[in-house]
């Protein structure tokens, strides 16, 4: 066991001397569900790569847009994988504001994030929280939380927001997606946001960000448009297909920054036919 570096998101001991990606995200989003070690990493990353702050806000904004899109398309069940610490603008808030009967299951590997989620969701009968490695689709899908909460005869939206770039090729991200795809019924959706860029595009800041992530948070894999597209095997991509993250169904042209067309990340939503 010794000698193998344990990823920070791995379950097991609750070690507050290590940063947690969920708590670092919370910090970046303006939350206080974090500790000095998380803030130290968060501050260092933002200081070195200021653009990341916008990247993170964009992923969070995509989540909101995607959930609203899915609600508009009749989806009332959500499986949010890698949900992290519920700060504000969470899936169930958005969904249940539209339809109070909407159901959500949050899944994360971070036991603290999950404990926190459970605490604040106490009393909400339509939301489940599960602590599991989302890469183990079998464990997620067979869990009582998922089985009791979600009706697999009705469409389900699987959300993988800012998740799959933490799954290296060696761990077969397409396989992870496929495992969920094979179980959800026709008419279900998959929403993905993913860090990445095209060949030839290059910004020193991206490498810096990658380096920081790899060292301090979790190893990150950038993927290009076609790689992200290939994760949607078995889904029909909804317009506009795989888009730069801010360009996927923007709420207003005013929301788009100057960097939108070469934003370091993609988003897409697909429907299982």
């Amino acid at each position: 066991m010794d000698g193998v570096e344990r990823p920070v998101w791995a379950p097991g001991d609750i070690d507050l001397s290590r940063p947690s990606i969920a708590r670092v995200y919370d910090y970046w989003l303006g939350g206080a569900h974090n500790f000095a070690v998380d803030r130290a990493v968060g501050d260092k990353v933002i200081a070195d790569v200021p653009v990341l702050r916008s990247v993170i806000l964009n992923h969070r904004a995509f989540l909101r847009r995607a959930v609203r899109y899915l609600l508009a398309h009749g989806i009332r069940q959500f499986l949010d994988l890698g949900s992290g610490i519920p700060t504000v603008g969470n899936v169930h808030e958005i969904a249940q504001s539209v339809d109070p009967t909407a159901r959500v299951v949050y899944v994360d590997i971070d036991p603290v994030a999950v404990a926190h989620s459970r605490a604040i969701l106490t009393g909400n009968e339509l939301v489940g929280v599960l602590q599991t490695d989302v890469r183990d689709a079998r464990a997620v899908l067979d869990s009582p939380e998922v089985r009791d909460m979600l009706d697999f005869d009705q469409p389900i939206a699987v959300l993988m927001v800012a998740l799959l770039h933490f799954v290296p090729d060696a761990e077969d991200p397409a396989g992870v997606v496929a495992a969920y795809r094979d179980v959800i019924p026709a008419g279900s959706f998959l929403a993905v946001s993913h860090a990445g860029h095209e060949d030839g595009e290059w910004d020193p800041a991206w490498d810096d960000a990658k380096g920081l992530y790899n060292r301090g948070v979790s190893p990150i894999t950038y993927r290009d448009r076609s790689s992200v597209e290939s994760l949607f095997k078995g889904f029909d991509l909804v317009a506009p297909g795989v888009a730069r993250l801010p360009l996927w169904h923007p709420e207003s042209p005013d929301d788009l920054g100057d960097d939108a067309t070469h934003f370091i990340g993609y988003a897409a939503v697909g429907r299982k036919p």
Partner: protein
Amino acid sequence: MTTEQVDHRVAAPGRSNLDPAVLAGAEAFARTWATAVIGSSYVPMTRAEVAEHLRALTEVLVHALHATPFRTAPGYEIGARLVEAHFTGTDTLGRTIQLLGDDLLGELGIAPDELMRSRLAALQGALSAGYARALRERTLAEQEAIRAAVLDARDQAEAALRASEARFRAMFTEAAIGIGIADIEGRILDVNQALQEMLGFSVEEMRQYNIRDLMHPEDGSTVWRLYDQLTAGECDHYRAEKRFRRADGEQVWTHLTLSLVRDDHGEPQYQVAMIEDVTDRHLLQNRLRYQALHDPLTGLPNRALFLERLGRVFNNRARRRAGLCYLDLDGFKVINDSLGHDIGDQLLVEVGRRLDHSVSGDGKLVARMGGDEFVILVEGSRDTQDIVDVADRVLRELESPIRIGGHELTVSASIGIVERELSGTTAADLMRDADITLYWAKADGKSRWALYDPDRNAKEVARFTLSATMPAALERDEFYVDYQPLVRLEDSTVVGVEALVRWQHPEFGRLAPDRFIELAEETGLIVPLGRWVLRRACRQARRWLEEFGEAAPFVSVNLAVRQSRDPELVRDVKRILDECALPPHHLQLELTESAVMGTADEPLEALRALSDMGVRIAIDDFGTGYSNLAYLKHLPVHELKIAGSFMEGLRAADEEDAVDVQIVSTLVQLAHALQLGVTAEGVETPAQAKRLHRIGCDTGQGWFFAKPMKPADIDELLRRR
């Protein structure tokens, strides 16, 4: 998230009271405000929603500026609402305060007089304070929430760990297999219930022990060698069969698996023993092994165990010499057949008991080989006498009668003894020689022992070789016939010749009849061999008849006892005579006294038939057997051949043995009285010939006249006349 669920939109109080121009100004300010703060905090709202939210707050501000009496509370409220809407980035506050100061009065079309400036400043201050307080509270609440989450998560992890520990503890406690844990020095730390019961010690007692205290004197050396390797970290686990002594002194056979547990640095830390009680299985195995290696009737070791022990004697070579008694009861078959197998079995049991009793001791083994054969192995004998003593003791032990079911049985045994140095021999040699020697003891008269004799064996081997190769030799024409003249003493005329078979053996050279006739009698080959000699002699006689006419000699052919009893004899002789066109009176058949006298009726009838046919019958070696002289008169016999042994006393030129002379004279007179011819065998000197002639003997045979010779030499002899 109930605590975070807020209504982001502050209801505009008395909105309709405001001047439309002021409202438009407020809306314009709210848009500028939104642009200024978007991106400074993450709020889960679209830009339009943010602008709408801020427009409402702006209207609150407008009311506050104009309210009478003037209160700063709405400013405080707006600060708090910003935090509630998650405008938690502190840049949001900075930009808001600045924008209020710079743009608000202008956008609203309010004259920036002293009063308004003062009121705005007071509201800015209140907003800041409200914001700071709300942010502080929110921060503290979230910090508390995340710490509570950590505690919850820890509690859950600990609960999971406790549950897991409880499961493992239950597994350890309840396991049917014995489990023990010791540190690397061998100090026992814990043992489960199964192991306590298996060994009969409590945990407390076990903790007093070191693993090495559990050493059993009969542990295989590998058990503890592997233990040393394991505690040294050289191997991670091993399995072994091991005995433990129980608290009550009994022993437990176990199947032991010992595993090494290493610490995080890979250093040996604990050892875990899994111990399964296999005593029952072991006892069963022992019993099965005992059954496999012992004779169920007598309880003695069986052939398999004996051979295993004998093999070990040769493998170990700890002893220099060893001996075997191979024993077989005499006449056991008769007892078994006449009194029944049950009595036979009881007899064997008693014999086994006596054998075991008489030879018990270290290095000695009595085994039943099967049937009524027993064998005694003596390891480390000093000399042959040691084994002879054992054999004598056994024979003595068997002398006293055995009483079984009302029968008083007397048994004896024959014993073959082999005793020798181990080097240069093998277990198989020893067994074979003992077996051969037992056969000798039987052949020599039973109820005795015989000692292995290599010379005797060599002879027997040679005899065996001869008898085994004889049939093929007959096929290959390795036999031939020589002829010895029978001379009429009256005028020294050759009247007949005796056919004498020889064997030109490819390995042993020329063999005289005494080397192989007896063997041929034993094997039965004498019948075809005799027929072959008869045919060969008759053909030769025919040739002489053709060449010499009436002067041709008859041929005298020996007839073995077995031949004389062959039912085909008469037919064979007739067929051969016919084949050769030989008149029957040119053939004489020689039989020994015993062949003629001791016979039943049938062979006698055959002789009579032959005699009637015209064939001459001679009694060979007459005088050496016990002839029934009265009976002789009735036999179809034409000639007596007096044995050469009577010629001894007639041999010397100057002096004669009166008794021998008298015997020969009497025999001749007897023969003549019965109207039989007399031939003297073994005539070797002129004196003998002269005396025999004087006594009245008709014919002589011997070296004095001629040795046995080739037919061509006989031709020469006949022509010379």
